[in-house]
């Protein structure tokens, strides 16, 4: 019983991290149909910027904020300079964003070196909560809390604010949205920046948990894609459920069927796609 409870908790908290990473990617997909191979790089760079901020100031909250904001600027620049001209060209998007991913990977190596680092977390977030025989690391609880807060903010913004309505309108039908006077370019840029911000936020948060190290970008990228594919592109609900499913599948797969652990992650995804090519909650 203890085994199941703690594995469930592990899966959920890993899913929470994946939600931070993939929530933005899903919105970007939904709105612009952009396959963004740079998404893992935002995660990596966010972690590195956060690391530098911690080293300079010692402030974890500042690291989270600055890490996320800096990378949103990177996202905006990449979008404006290249991606906005490539709408509807999957091949162009994949290759351009892959090019950026390689460049960012190498720049990170030049700037931060190749040693593995850990982002120091505040004392209040370290240690574990003990319930009977079970240990729940506080930091994992914190990740779940961050994910819940971010999901709530996103949901409230999308459903109840003017800009949220404009985003939804653009996701549903960009032509129509442009017709009624929405600045689709601006909205797209905002969403792209938001995606980059969330990925970087995930990077800083993950830095206190799995560390910051070269290679993390391409390691995490398939997970982000899987979440988006399973949940369906452009759906917040889909991203949330997709993250939880992937977190749990990954965790239980590794614990129960170690030899097939990636198979247990990707095969259900293929099965879902066979039934619903647009994912569980996606719209074609």
């Amino acid at each position, binding site marked *: 019983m203890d*085994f199941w409870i*703690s*594995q469930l908790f*592990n899966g959920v*908290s*890993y899913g929470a991290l994946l939600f931070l990473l993939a929530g933005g990617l899903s919105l970007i997909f939904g709105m612009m149909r952009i*396959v963004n*191979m740079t998404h893992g790089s935002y995660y990596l760079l966010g972690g590195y910027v956060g690391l530098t901020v911690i080293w300079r100031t010692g402030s974890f909250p500042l690291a989270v904020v600055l890490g996320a904001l800096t990378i949103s600027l990177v996202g905006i620049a990449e979008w404006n300079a*290249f991606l906005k001209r490539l709408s509807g*060209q*999957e*091949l*162009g998007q*994949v*290759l*351009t964003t*892959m*090019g*950026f991913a*390689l*460049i960012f990977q*190498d*720049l990170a190596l*030049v700037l931060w*070196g*190749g*040693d*593995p*680092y*850990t982002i120091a977390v505040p004392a209040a977030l*370290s240690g*574990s909560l*003990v319930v009977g025989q079970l*240990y729940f690391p*506080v930091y994992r609880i914190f990740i779940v809390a961050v994910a819940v807060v971010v999901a709530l903010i996103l949901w409230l913004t999308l459903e109840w604010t003017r800009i949220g309505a404009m985003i939804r309108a653009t996701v549903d039908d960009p032509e129509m949205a442009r017709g009624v006077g929405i600045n689709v370019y601006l909205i797209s840029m905002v969403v792209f920046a938001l995606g980059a911000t969330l990925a970087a936020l995930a990077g800083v948060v993950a830095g206190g948990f*799995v*560390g910051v190290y*070269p*290679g993390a970008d*391409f390691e995490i990228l*398939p997970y982000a*894609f*899987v979440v*988006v*594919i399973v949940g369906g*592109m452009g759906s917040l609900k889909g991203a949330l459920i997709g993250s939880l499913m992937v977190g749990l599948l990954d*965790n239980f797969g*590794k614990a129960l069927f*170690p*030899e*097939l652990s*990636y*198979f247990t992650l*990707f095969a259900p*995804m*293929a099965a879902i*796609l*066979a039934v619903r*090519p*647009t994912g569980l909650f996606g719209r074609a």
Partner: protein
Amino acid sequence: MRVALPPGAPRIALGVAFAALLVAPPLVSSFLLALLTQAAIYAVLAMSLDIILGYIGLASLGHAAYLGLGAYSVGILATRHGAPFWVTLAVGVLLATAVASIFGLFALRASGVYFLMITLALGMVVWGLAHRWVTMTQGDNGISSVPRPDLGLPWSFSRGIPFYYLALAGFLLALVVLRTIVRSPFGQTLVGIRESESRMRTLGYHVWLHKYLGFVIAGAVGGFAGVLWAYYNGFVSPADLDLATSTEILLMVALGGRGTLIGPALGAALIVGLKNLVSVYTHRWLLILGAVYIGTIVYAPEGIVGALRQWTKGERAMGKKVIVSLAVLALLVGLAAAGPAWAQKGPIKIGVITAMTGGAAQIGKDMTNGISMWLDENGGTIAGRKVEVIVEDSQGQPNVALTKLQKLVESDRVHVLVGEIFAHIGYAMAPKVDEYKIPMLYPVIAADDLTQRKPAKWVVRTGWASSQPSHPFGEYAAKNLGYKRIVTIGIDYAFGWEVVGGFQKTFEENGGQIVQKLWAPLNTTDFAPYLSQIRRDADAVFALMVSISASRFPRQYQDAGLKAKLPLIGGGTTFDEFVLPSLGDEAIGGMSPLIYSAALDTPVNKKFVAEYRKKYGKVPSYFSETSYTSTRWINEAAKAVGGDVENREKFLEALRKVEIPDAPRGPVKLDSYGNPVQNIYVRKVEKKDGELWNTVVHTYPAVSQFWKYKPDDFLKQPVYDRNFPACKHC
């Protein structure tokens, strides 16, 4: 600038190109020949993807899967069952065909971005199996020692030139077959569907079936490329089919010109050239590759051949931008190809192969730091001769390491090699090193069998064997620490199996019991799924972590509430100086054995640590120490032969006889199997002046890789692996 090409030009250019490819071998260096061989094989793969991208009009992000299926068919059948070429070829192509015909059912339900994502997912399924289905695929160790094929012909394909012609024949065969297909009515229908699916449907064509057949053909030809690739490299690893490879194939097709067949072949050649040649000149080659990705889309969205076609037809004038970028690219490749021909005799040349980019780049840096430091301290000379060090980036990839090995030996004519980090690369290089008869020092690669059951004559290990520190430590844990029941958790590849296996053997022989063995994949950073399985009724946990995993494990171990209950001990890399700076107080008390500790209290080592810190701003890792000592090793041997390192046999003999009484790690000499006999230090992590150090608590002097066993008896047991020794008490 406007340039118009005469209409016959493409045909003539093609003819000249093929003629050049046919007569090239005797004229080019073997390094260039190797690149041409690789390009031919990748060209097959790129052309097969072109069927999907160029003729069906869908971008697939999972095409490397077919390369992998073909390659693993060869790897498994040829090494385990001794299957001949034609059998592996048939199985590889059929398997790829079968998988493509299943994947096609899934993928072709979608189009556009969705098709891309589904193919990505399916590609990941195959990659996941290669990576984790260890009993079948050997996981991250990869499958090595795939023999070159024997076709019953008078030529041996183990040599470069015959194999080049084999690859070229494969390329031409694929070209002819695919060209016939795309020019047939079937191929024309595909183009029609690409242009307008609805029109073709209205005209009564079975659109889905055409696309499906095209998809399956592409998979089959991709499998064919995989078969050639495995035979060429001599080994197969999960990196052959990861996401980066899939994107690279896409780039080849796009760069050359999709929908042209010959374009993707050209693109393959350019990218293979770029990756291998540019990295000779700069370790920042990734920046250039990244720029090529972006530049292709910005400047030549139709690809090189696509653009050429438009110009010959006079549809478009050649833009200045395109000419300039093509010229730059040609210049780069040309420069690179012409480059490494200089330098004949004079200095002693040391070729270093290690990862300078990617996840293990810092280990590569630690190694090159150690080498430079020794040379700087000794006036840049070895045995009185000037020294030239040529560092090549293996990118952490076996096939790149082999290509660079060839470059260093044949083009740079180095006298001795030092290098590499990963065991599977070590195994892949050893036969080549023997073939070249050039001494190579392995300061890091620890795989037991390199100096036990599969020794290579020309490889001199200056580091340690994986299980060497584990043997005394197993005894120490049972006798000195008094543990009776221990749980092990290790990284799931050969190095992990050997470290854990060695520990288990001596621990159990001294009365202990291993009660549970857990394995986590390479590069695991989240240990939650494993920690919650650890049996709480043990006395301690023995963890074997490396690098990134080591930097995360102790903290998560503590947070899971385990540290307070079960003391944490481990293999040397779990707490080595490479990871200590990224660990916190949670690591304090951790015990592990290794050949080195930066805290070793000898004058030689204290000086070494102080100098290294002054120079590089960090505490030396064992990677630095073994590379530093390796350089001195070369010096001692070179002195013994009076600087005549050109006499390789004598030089090798001298290398094997070197004894260093005062290395930073202590006295070192080789046993008759070529592995160092040296001290093993039992170390305990302690905090001093705010830093973590591995305080030495016990020294086992002059430990051999065979510990207290007779070598012959020891070698009768199989090499340690996941299930040997068996877990009797689990």
